[in-house]
């Protein structure tokens, strides 16, 4: 029974729960807590599925004299589990190395093409009319890249807001948060895969960086920067999923600290529930039971 229930919980946490949660608007009120929630869901799904595999393997050999085919199946299930884990870490390592190599090359090019900014050492200005603004994260050696077009489009305070937003990304290592969800997305088998955690956390880190920028430059400067850069005309190939800008502006417009705190509380509560309940209700009794059978 335990393997079956754990598997069911794992499946639920992998597909329907993220789909439901991705549609909820209230999680946008507390981006930091929402990221914790998405991470907890992912961890809980992995734990439940691994637990289901492990429990199945052990159940197969739980009798006094398990038949040979049961022992073989036991080994196969365990082997499959090890394989899945190995594949995950292997692909995580590779994709991380690729990301670092790509960033290094990009940073080198930006250093050669971009002009340093007098006041902020990490800033590089590209001589381009197309407005761009982004950061290249690296501990101790990051770059904040903007173009001439960005500087001409934005006023001083809005440019400050943009730079502070990017600095917040770098400081809080938002790239690691996104990288983690990218690994997960690749690691899950296609049928169990949803892009909700990755998409949602992309929005959440923007909201967090926005909060940092607002604290420094105020609401209006940041809002003007978002509208100016999201509404700028760029080559058609650069059109992206833009609904993010609307979500970000909406968060600036609606000031409701009490509601935000409630949303954060709800996120943390659900995180605790998905992590603790399956463990307490299923895994621990099952482990005790297995222990008593062994001794």
């Amino acid at each position, binding site marked *: 029974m335990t393997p079956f229930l754990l598997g069911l919980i794992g499946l639920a946490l992998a597909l329907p729960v993220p789909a439901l949660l991705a549609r909820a608007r209230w999680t946008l009120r507390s981006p930091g807590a929402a990221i914790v929630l998405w991470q907890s869901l992912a961890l809980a799904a992995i734990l439940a599925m691994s637990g289901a595999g492990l429990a199945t393997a052990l159940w197969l050999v739980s009798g006094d004299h398990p038949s040979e085919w049961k022992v073989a199946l036991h080994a196969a299930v365990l082997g499959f589990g090890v394989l899945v884990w190995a594949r995950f870490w292997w692909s995580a390592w590779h994709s991380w190395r690729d990301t670092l190599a790509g960033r290094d090359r990009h940073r*080198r090019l930006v250093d050669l093409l971009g002009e340093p900014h007098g006041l902020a050492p990490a800033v590089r200005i*590209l001589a381009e009319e197309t407005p761009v603004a982004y950061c290249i994260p690296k501990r101790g050696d990051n770059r904040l890249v903007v173009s001439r077009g960005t500087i001409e489009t934005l006023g001083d305070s809005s440019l400050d807001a943009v730079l502070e937003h990017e600095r917040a990304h770098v400081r809080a290592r938002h790239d690691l948060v996104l990288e983690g969800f990218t690994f997960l997305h690749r690691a899950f088998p296609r049928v169990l895969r949803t892009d909700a955690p990755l998409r949602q956390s992309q929005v959440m880190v923007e909201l967090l960086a926005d909060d940092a920028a607002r604290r420094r430059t105020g609401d209006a400067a940041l*809002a003007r920067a978002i509208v100016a850069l999201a509404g700028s005309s760029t080559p058609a190939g650069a059109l992206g999923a833009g609904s993010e800008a609307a979500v970000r502006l909406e968060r600036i417009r609606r000031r409701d600290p009490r509601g935000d705190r409630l949303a954060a509380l709800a996120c943390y509560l659900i995180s605790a529930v998905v992590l603790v309940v399956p463990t307490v209700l299923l895994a621990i009794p099952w482990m005790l039971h297995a222990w008593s059978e062994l001794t």
Partner: protein
Amino acid sequence: MPNLGELERSVMNVLWDAADPLSVREVQDALGDRDLAYTTVMTVLDRLGGKDMVDRERDGRAFRYVARMTRDAATSEVLHAALDASGDRTSALLHFARTVDPSEAAALRAVLAEIEAADDSA
């Protein structure tokens, strides 16, 4: 004395502006900085070579240096990565904002007007 990054940028610009591969001496002359030692220029060229930005070719007993890619190619590679809207590079670069279509831009401006009004009254 400019810092090393600054020097690399100047040297790269010299190579980008040159029609042909340049010797160390020619790079040094083009930089037009009398205080800059020959060995310093050579070091910078070697560093750029280590970064895959410069190729060197043998010319008699010395080397001549050439930019591995043109300035335009380098610029377009950077812009391409910077403007890439696909989700694949999301964690490599963190963008400030993606562009939206005109109707959505109008909606954004309406919300902005509200935010600015609230800011003024506060």
